[in-house]
């Protein structure tokens, strides 16, 4: 057989049937859902269809989960209570396994599912959430889908897909100290744009990816969707196998087939991007699109510096929304709040990196820390990170999406400015008129201490 990519190998192993026009019916090994999947439950209920493989279907209560407590007692909004209630009812009606609010393994689907060992190398994984690309970090073919597709997977355990084009992104070299996975992926998106990988499946490779722990790879694959690609993946290696060992749903020893999951020498990609990781700096976004990012040590660009007229107009709109002139140093931009959380950056190493910066210091602006899962929260407490956060004056919360998408009632507030470790700085993402700057956990912690956007090295 000719040389195949990692993507080809997983794709080929899941084709149930192929139409003459190339469209394939793919089998799905893991299907995750969350509270927002209610439209899909309604669709199958309307047709009286059962869930075909409840054993491959797992629910996570994350988007609407309150992070102040583990019950609905403090949740005033009747619609939020209603949507959590609907989730619970659907879980019960279909006898599904779900990690609900009170479950010790509750967490954000893209944090908790890998942690539980549910996502494994070589699997196909879907979820009605665009950041499902995260799971590709384990060497899975994982992508986000819409509600109609969720209903289709519920009913058939399959999905129709046209094979996308493929892009290889190589992070060569070694990052400078203080440059994290988040900075790497923000730099990539700044370079290729939010549409840069539309229509492609991305494989991340190169020395700097190999050197990353699984958590860093999850951060990078998580934000693949911000470059326009539904799928991001990393070939599994010894780092992956060691990380999976002992996890609840993972096999006791690595499956020998996992070692076949790599791109063959000579396999072809439709596009290739090479990043010299050694030249990267800690990044921050200044606008309302993840591509509007620059080194946090520098300045916000002026609209007039945009490469073309269309971009100049877009930059001017972004700057106006962000309450910025253009030209100011990030270090001069005062913050109102800092959020350390989300499926991008709320895993244990992320919390450790922030705590290392906060140790012995005090935050100058309110800082909310929401671990990505309750398991992360327990592990962090076991090593005393919660005390470091508390002593620094940060608020230690429970797991959930929280301020990332402001669906659970946590919001930043109009025209207030937030440094956030999440993945989207879209207008209104953290609440109407909220101004979001995406940064790494280290930079978030440093910025909370300074009250302005700075890297940890500036303290």
């Amino acid at each position, binding site marked *: 057989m000719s040389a195949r990519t990692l993507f080809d190998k997983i794709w080929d192993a899941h084709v149930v049937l192929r139409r003459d026009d190339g469209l394939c019916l793919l089998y799905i090994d893991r299907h995750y859902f969350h509270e927002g999947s209610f439209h899909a439950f309604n669709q199958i209920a309307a047709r009286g269809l059962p869930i075909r493989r409840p054993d491959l279907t797992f629910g996570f209560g994350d988007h609407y989960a309150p992070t102040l407590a583990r019950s609905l007692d403090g949740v005033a909004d009747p619609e939020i209570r209603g949507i959590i209630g609907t989730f619970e009812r659907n879980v019960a009606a279909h006898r599904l396994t779900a990690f609900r609010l009170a479950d010790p393994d509750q967490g954000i689907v893209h944090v908790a599912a890998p942690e539980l060992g549910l996502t494994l190398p070589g699997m196909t994984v879907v979820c009605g959430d665009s950041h499902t690309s995260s799971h590709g970090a384990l060497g899975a073919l994982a992508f986000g*889908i819409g509600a109609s597709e969720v209903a289709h997977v519920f009913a058939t355990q399959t999905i129709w897909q046209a094979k996308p084009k493929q892009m290889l992104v190589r992070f060569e070299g070694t990052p400078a100290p203080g440059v994290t996975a988040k900075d790497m992926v923000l730099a990539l998106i700044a370079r290729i744009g939010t549409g840069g990988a539309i229509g492609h499946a991305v494989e991340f490779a190169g020395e700097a990816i190999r050197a990353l722990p699984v958590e860093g790879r999850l951060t990078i694959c998580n934000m693949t969707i911000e470059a326009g690609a539904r799928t991001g993946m990393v070939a599994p290696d010894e780092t992956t196998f060691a990380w999976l060992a002992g996890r609840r749903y993972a096999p006791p020893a690595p499956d020998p087939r996992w070692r076949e999951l790599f791109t063959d020498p000579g396999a072809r990609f439709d596009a290739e991007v090479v990043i010299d990781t050694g030249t990267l700096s800690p990044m921050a976004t200044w606008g309302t699109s993840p591509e509007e990012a620059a080194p946090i040590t520098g300045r916000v660009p002026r609209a007039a510096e945009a490469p073309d007229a269309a971009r100049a107009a877009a930059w001017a709109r972004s700057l106006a929304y962000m309450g910025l002139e253009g030209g100011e140093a990030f270090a001069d931009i005062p913050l109102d709040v800092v959020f350390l959380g989300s499926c991008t950056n709320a895993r244990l190493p992320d919390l450790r990196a922030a705590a290392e910066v906060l140790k012995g210091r005090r935050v100058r602006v309110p800082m909310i820390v929401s671990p990505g899962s309750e398991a992360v929260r327990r592990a962090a407490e076991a090593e005393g990170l919660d005390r470091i956060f508390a002593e620094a004056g940060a608020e230690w919360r429970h797991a959930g999406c929280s301020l990332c998408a402001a669906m659970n009632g946590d919001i930043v507030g109009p025209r207030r400015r937030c440094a956030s470790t999440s993945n989207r700085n879209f207008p209104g993402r953290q609440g109407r008129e909220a101004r979001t700057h995406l940064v790494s956990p280290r930079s978030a912690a440093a910025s909370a201490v300074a009250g302005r956007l700075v890297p940890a090295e500036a303290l």
Partner: protein
Amino acid sequence: MEPITRFEGLAAPLALDNVDTDQIIPARFLRKPRDADYQRWLFHDLRFAPDGSPLPGFVLNRPPFDAATILVAGRNFGVGSSREAAVYALQAFGIRAVIAESFGDIHYSNALKNGLLPIRLPPERVRALREAAEGGGLRLTVDLERCVVASPDGAEDPFAVPAFARDCLLRGLDEIGLTLTHLPEIEAFEARHAV
């Protein structure tokens, strides 16, 4: 689903790139039921001031565009969140087709599954149609059988739609029903595929 073959409608210009699905429907409305009021959440924060009053500067608030059924956007329409509610909100407002240079991948397939036609055209044609739409009198005909967008001046812009989706739309076929006719193949696959 009702079959879609051909329809004619007023085009509204939306001269913005990277319109993400958070802007099409902000997250706080995702918990709303899909009822008669659903069109209200479409572009909510671009369309309404914080006090709820319509913002006159937003195109869909201005007659005749408040009755538009075709939206001519820019680059990367519908990037971001996978929320299918973005499609529901567009349809609730009456939009039947969106013409753009490119679309977010997930939004593109969500639209097709619901009979909202996402039409990719070359940048110069998208710009030309958007400019022609600005006067408020551009009525376009979308012909899914021939896969063209026809302008009143006689210009025809061909577009591509994945064959399977087009077939389902033209015949009003339901994908789940169709896939379930392949149950024997799915079962055979399961028999040889260990998860």
